[in-house]
């Protein structure tokens, strides 16, 4: 580590910090500015009237908002818990597998991480399509009724959650796999000699070592699931009857479908505050220290 005054390091950091300042700091301030004014498609490029907190009051007294918050809770809780469950299990099984087995399965399992949200949405739409969908093909082959996934509230939510698990779990696997390299193989051998079963080794030895990484994965998947809406937009457009209209989608559609930009900004700031509270709670409850 070497000192060169302020200017040399600053010069190296300038492009990155310029981008952060403009696209984070300035744009977040602009978001607050829009939320405090009345901005719609009508006056978008004209004068904006200052309305104080009125947009926030409108958002949080709107019954559609309450419905969308409920959808977000259902979506986030089911998607995150299953992503964490599958992510932990599969990365652990990959870690415990022979290197040949691992070499075969790892690339297959990370394919969704390389899939655009459009690929995820299109392929699950095709899986669930009423006539040509794989799921309905199987259901009718074994004598069940076909399900109209996009016409039934519960089925649509199920589909969105399923697609988000498919899309999001590989990231958890990648993150935890790099953490598991710190679990040395000798540890397993020592535990085996001491008579520990696989389950005891996993819960008593592996989990405590992995805990900080699990908390990081939990925080990231929660924030991403909470704010995820492009997948929902492409799969169901929030339908049927707003059954999958999650909270951030509620803001996006208010802005870009109805031209209510201020309303949308108030939603996104609401989402930001909820994110910060969730992250704070996770860090407090887990008791993991994130110094440095």
């Amino acid at each position, binding site marked *: 580590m070497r*000192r060169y005054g302020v200017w040399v390091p600053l010069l190296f950091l300038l492009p990155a910090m310029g981008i952060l300042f403009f696209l984070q700091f300035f744009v977040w301030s602009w978001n607050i500015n829009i939320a405090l004014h009345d901005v719609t498609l009508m006056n978008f490029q004209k004068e904006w009237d200052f309305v104080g907190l009125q947009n926030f009051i409108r958002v949080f007294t709107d019954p559609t908002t309450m419905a969308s918050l409920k959808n977000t809770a259902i979506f986030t809780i089911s998607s995150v818990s299953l992503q964490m469950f599958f992510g932990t299990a599969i990365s652990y099984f990959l870690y415990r597998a022979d290197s040949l087995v691992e070499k075969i399965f790892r690339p297959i399992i990370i394919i969704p991480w390389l899939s655009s949200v459009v690929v995820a949405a*299109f392929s699950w739409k095709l899986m669930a399509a009423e006539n040509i969908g794989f799921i309905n093909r199987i259901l009718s082959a074994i004598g069940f009724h076909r399900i109209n996934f996009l016409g039934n509230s519960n089925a649509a939510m199920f589909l969105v959650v399923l697609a988000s698990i498919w899309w999001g779990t590989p990231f958890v696997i990648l993150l935890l796999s*790099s953490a598991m390299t710190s679990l040395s193989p000798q540890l397993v051998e020592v535990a085996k000699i001491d008579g520990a079963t696989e389950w005891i080794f996993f819960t008593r030895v592996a989990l405590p070592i992995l805990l900080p990484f699990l908390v990081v994965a939990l925080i990231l998947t929660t924030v991403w699931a909470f704010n995820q809406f492009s997948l929902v937009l492409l799969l169901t457009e929030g339908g049927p009857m707003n059954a999958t209209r999650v909270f951030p989608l509620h803001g996006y559609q208010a802005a870009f479908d109805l031209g209510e930009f201020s309303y949308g900004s108030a939603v996104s700031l609401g989402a930001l505050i909820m994110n910060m509270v969730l992250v704070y709670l996770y860090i407090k409850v887990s008791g993991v220290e994130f110094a440095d």
Partner: protein
Amino acid sequence: MSEKTSRILILISYSIFTLLPIYWTTNLSFQKDVSFPPTYFPDDFGVVNYINLLNTRGIVTSILNSLMVAALSALVSIIVCSMAGYAFSQLEMWGKKFLFGAVLATLLLPPTLNIIPMYSVFSELGWLNSRLAMVLLYQLSNMPLNTFLFTNYFDTIEEPIVESAIVDGAGPFRRFVSIFIPLSKPAVIAGYLFAFRFSWMEYLFGATFIKAPSKRLFPAALKVAVRSSQYSVDYGIMTAGGILLLVPTLLILVFGQRYLEAGLQLGGVD
């Protein structure tokens, strides 16, 4: 059944879950007529869906646009992030931890939450329908992972090499260009692949900010192309489009898996 067998069975089941949607999309994409009832394998094999897709107005242009935007975004990303990583890893400066934290915080502040103010700002600046503005915007999403990657990689470069460069009179700029970058080929490749992957795949910003057909990016153009009319969806175009959108990133996996994995190890949030 031994524990080993059951572990492999679980991996197989999860792999089937992963592959099913891809298999089904591929299967349908090679059927001449994507209609009822579908078969498990294309018995009327044909590439007509791909031909229809490529003949759809604006699709080929959008593929070229996306390739250009992704290639340029990735190049800019490795320049910006290697410079930042060098400062974080090698130079001492007041407030560095705070700035590193600001990069880290980007992971927890999803840019999509800011799409409305960005739209407003880009509109004021005349940046809507601009592919270069997308290159700039994608830098934000690519920054955390690539900055960690370069910071951690530069940390592993051995001190004697740096010391001897200093003895030879190389200043901080010289060392960056002639020592750190040339010794960091794996990080440069991984960083390029990460940023290319993200920028090629991104849908929401591209679809919201670029409406001019000649400038559209591929994911957004596909979404427009599958809507054959207001109420109907062209499944043929959907299948072929999904596969074409997936192929470049799958090629990254096939040819760059070594770099991706090493890169993720370094870029991991630890």
